[in-house]
């Protein structure tokens, strides 16, 4: 079973999260620069004379497609590395993924998301099993 993690995190936590993920062997990901706000609804910025409210703040969204067996460990790594305890730490969404096909090798499914030296190989798993 394949899953997709969409993690919305602070801009300034990108490097921490990337490091934590590579430490456990998550090697493939992509990210978007996004804007948005949660419950607290943005922050006030200094203007020419006094402050004004900005509701859409810059955030980073990291996308990772991975095997279900690696899901909890990955979530734990993100939770630990993206955490500050202040409002605005972000959210993690998990979705089921129907299919993954790697263009170069035409590998499908689980095989398509395995890389040399990744979390699966470290645990002794090999492709095709």
């Amino acid at each position, binding site marked *: 079973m394949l899953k997709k993690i969409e993690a919305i995190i602070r801009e300034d936590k990108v490097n921490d999260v990337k490091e934590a993920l590579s430490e456990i062997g998550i090697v493939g990901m992509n990210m978007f620069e996004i804007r948005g706000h949660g419950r607290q609804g943005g922050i*006030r910025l*200094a*203007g*020419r*004379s*006094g*402050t*004004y*409210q*900005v509701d859409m703040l810059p955030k980073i969204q990291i996308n990772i497609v991975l095997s279900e067996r690696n899901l909890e460990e990955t979530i734990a790594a993100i939770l630990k590395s993206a955490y500050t305890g202040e409002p605005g730490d972000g959210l993690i969404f998990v979705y089921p993924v129907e299919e993954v096909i790697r263009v170069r090798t035409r590998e499908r499914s689980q095989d398509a998301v395995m890389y040399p030296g990744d979390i699966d190989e470290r645990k002794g798993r090999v492709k095709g099993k």
Partner: protein
Amino acid sequence: MGNPVNTGDTAWILVCCSLVLLMTPALGLFYGGMVRRKNVLSTLTMSYTFMALIGVQWVLYGYSLAFGKDIQGIIGGLNFVGFNDVGAVPNGDYAKTIPHGLFAAFQMMFAVITPALITGAFVERVKFKSFLLFSLLWATLVYDPLCHWVWGAGGWLKNLGTLDFAGGTVVHIAAGFSALAFALVIGPRKGFGKSPLEPHSIPLTVLGAGLLWVGWFGFNAGSALAANGVAVNALLTTNTSAATAGLVWMLLSWLDGRPSTLGIATGMVVGLAAVTPASGYVTPLASMVIGAVAAPLSYYAMRFRDRRGLDESLDVWACHGVASCWGMLATGLFATVAVNSDGGNGLFFGNPAQLSIQLLAILVTVVFSFGVTYVLAKLLHESIGLRVSAMEEEVGLDISSHGERSYS
């Protein structure tokens, strides 16, 4: 024939002329950083347009209307049309030691930047064609006559003894109150008051403010029209007022949250606008008071404008109009012949009459510039229209007016 040219004075004013020219691109950057990214080119273009438009108008007839042979104290005659008789020989009425052509060129740079200041009122929504027409009409019907009244030989405000060293009335009050009138007619930008229309690049604005400060040395110290002690005094008062106003503005914005970069840069420009009429008549210490008072006046004028829901978009009125009204009054308070023997004394130096003259000059400038601009803008609004369509405004003027993008 004529007076002898002084090479030191001439070299200095040649430099000042270039410094004041620099202020118009600087203003473009100052304004360009404060608009949204879809309107940067449009905002820059409007400032640059004046270097072209007035560069032609001034030679053809603008200079003559402002500084030509006086007609009833109201307007200059046509004797300098096409820069006829404006050449190497000094004109004793204005500057005895530099070529007449240099005086005219130096004045041209003032005529260029003044209408460029007004563009801050209507950025992000004005129709380019209407802007061009308005600009030419404004230069001809507001700037040229007003310049003659205050600075032209025989001008009626000059004859009354108005003290305006480098353009408190002619430049800053005129631009500020014209901006107010224009903003009232054209109406707010789409989305004004609903969501913040954020400045897209404060670094551009800060760069512009810095270059404005440099250029202002030419503007104020050059207005001595000679390389002498009055020029040096004007440079010192200019610097002191800008420095003080920058500091005070920083404190004001700090009290309301954080010491804002945009706020500090704005405060500096406000200090420069305030000291302009006074620069050649007051001491550096007096200019510190001028800058210190100008900052809160403009700061709260800005907030007042905002609370009234008036989209005078880049606060030309609050920054230039309000600050320079105070600067003109302050000239009537702090002026002393100890600084400039060709100037006068203010209230604090035993001449209360000067204050009433300054007040009259302010009132005349406010009523004249506001009134004529309001009528001009209204006429254009009702005929060819001042605004682009809602769709063009949404897309941004860079694309819809000029067919270009700032950042690809």
